[in-house]
Structure formats: C-alpha cells, structure tokens
C-alpha cells in the first residue's frame, strides 16, 4: 500500500486555507509565522473550534497540552505533522 505523506509545507497551507475559510479572512493575508490569536482576532473558545476543525480535517488527535502556548500557524503545523 502506498502511503502518501504530506509535507510540512502542504500541512501549513491546508491550515492557513482552513483558518481563512472558517474565520472569513482573505487567504493571502495569512502567513505561517502569524500569531493566529492576533491575526484572526480569536479568543480561546474560537481557538478550540479551530483545533477541532483541524483534528477533523487531518484526522488526528491534538491533545490540548501539545498546543498549549502555541500561537503561530507554523508551530501548529509541526504539531499536526508529528501526528500524521
């Protein structure tokens, strides 16, 4: 069976696209290094929603303690990549 593994760049791109779609902001305005709390103007409840959407999208589990303190898309992508 061939296993297709996403690259970190692909994972990051999918996160940015998902965040832009869900929070209704232009995709072009989001960068991997952005602080998503500030850039998207979200609180921790919305961050939890984003976490759930990412888990559903990638089919992974992201324990809260692994993303605690994470505020940029790039680090979020590496946390997800580690579970793909």
């Amino acid at each position, binding site marked *: 069976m061939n296993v297709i593994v996403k690259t970190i760049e692909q994972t990051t791109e999918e996160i940015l696209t998902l965040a832009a779609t869900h929070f209704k902001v232009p995709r072009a305005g989001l960068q991997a290094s952005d602080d998503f709390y500030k850039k998207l103007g979200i*609180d*921790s*409840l919305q*961050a*939890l*929603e984003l976490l*759930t*959407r990412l*888990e*559903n999208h990638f089919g992974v*589990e992201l*324990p*809260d*303690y692994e993303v*605690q303190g994470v505020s940029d898309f790039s680090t979020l992508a590496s946390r997800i990549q580690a579970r793909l």
Partner: protein
Amino acid sequence: MNELTNTMDEYKGKSLSWSVADGVIELALDRAPANEIGLAMLEDLERFITMLPALELKASALIIYSKQKAGFSAGADLRELYAQAQKMEMASAVKGVRDFLNRIHAVMNRLDTSPLTTIAAVHGVCFGGGFELALACDLIVADKMARFCFPELRLGIIPCFGGIPRLKRDIGNAVVRDLLLTGRSINATKALAVGLASQVAAEGEALRVARSTAAQTTKFDRTTAAAAKEFIKPLPAEELRREIELFCELFTRPAVMEALLKFVESTDAMPYLP
C-alpha cells in the same frame, strides 16, 4: 412566555425551558454565556425533576440540548462557587458545597434512572459539570464540533456531579484515566470511538439526529424499554456518595481557592480552557 403562562407541559425558567410534544420531552439549557451550572440552573433543574414523574406518563424520551452557541455546557459556575466561598469560613463553605452537591446529585441520579430514554444532543463545549449532565443521559449524540473535557484537576479538584462513576460505568478505565488525569479535551470522533457518544452528527445537526432517535423510541412498549434500561444501566450509588466526600476533602485545600481566584481574575473569554 412568562412564569404565569408556564404549564406542566411547557415551562420557561431563568436558565432553561422544556416542552412536551409527540411523546418527547425537550429540555433546552439556555443560560449565557455557556450554561454554567450554578444555583439558578440547579433550581430550574430541580423544578424539572419535580415535574418529571407527571411528564414521564406522557412521554417515551427526553432530549437535553443547549440553545447557547458556545456549547452544551461549560460546567459548574466556578465564579459563583468562588464568590460564595469567599463570604464565609471554610467550614461553612464546605457545608454549602456539600449541600449543593447533594442537590445536584439528586437531580443527576433522577435523570439517570428515569424510565424514559434520555438523549443528550451535544454541540460545542461539554466540559466538567456539563459533561456530567450528558453522562447522566442514556445516549449522547455529538455534533462533530463537540468537545468533551474534565478540566477539574487544573483547579485542584475532581469532577463532582457524578462524572467519574458514570464515566467508569460507560467506558474503559484507560480512557477514564486519560481524560481525568491529563484534563485534555476530546472531539466527537474520539468520543464515538471510545464509546462515549453513540452517534456523531454533522455540524448543527445534533438536535435533529436526537429528535430522530427519540422518535424511534416512541415505537416501543415503555414498560419493556424501562425494564431494559434498568437492567443495563445500574446507578453506581456508593461511588457517587464517595465522590462527594472526596470532593469536600479536596475543596478545603488552599490550592483550590488559589486556582479558583486565578480563574475568576482571568480576562479570557473561556478561562477554563487549556
């Protein structure tokens, strides 16, 4: 609708409402911001429980859901708990906590053992006491954006509305320990995989799925359904009593008040989240 127009079949209180139609009772939690369970919610739940014997005569199922966007329920009202505790000596505070817990346990136990088929339609946050309310139901229908969590250990306490005994009754101990000892939240897919939820619904569809499930239960003989439920869902009465004792012991520790103070002073919209 105001208090004067409330009837047995239809009621609107400060924090919830209920109605009965086509053999199904719908109990809607509706207290901003996230259905925190404090005295107001407890009193409304007690009112519902008082009416339940009469309601059970005309229904086959009960659906509990939330009208709040944030989710099913964020759990116990910790701000109220802290404010009440600050007004009195610790011995009086513990007495007040024990009284509250005895009352909420009576509500949960009555829901748990109702002859109706009970369904929690869960969306968004289902944390702490809210999770415990869902666990008192026979079935959990989870919106795919639902999130389940027992964050209590972060505050130096344990779940105290019957959560641990009910979780132990329903799912494997390894998952119980994971949820309890890490305080992490899990999504609907995981909840389904571990046997916590019985169905997952698309976003915004949990209530519709719960209604469809409830309609199915109205086709069965109630005596048989109630007997089947009693047979497979025993109340873990002794463990529930021990949970109250353990909570009251832990509650007296200074670390608990410090953690509650930190929670109360947080400016975050949802400070109980990780």
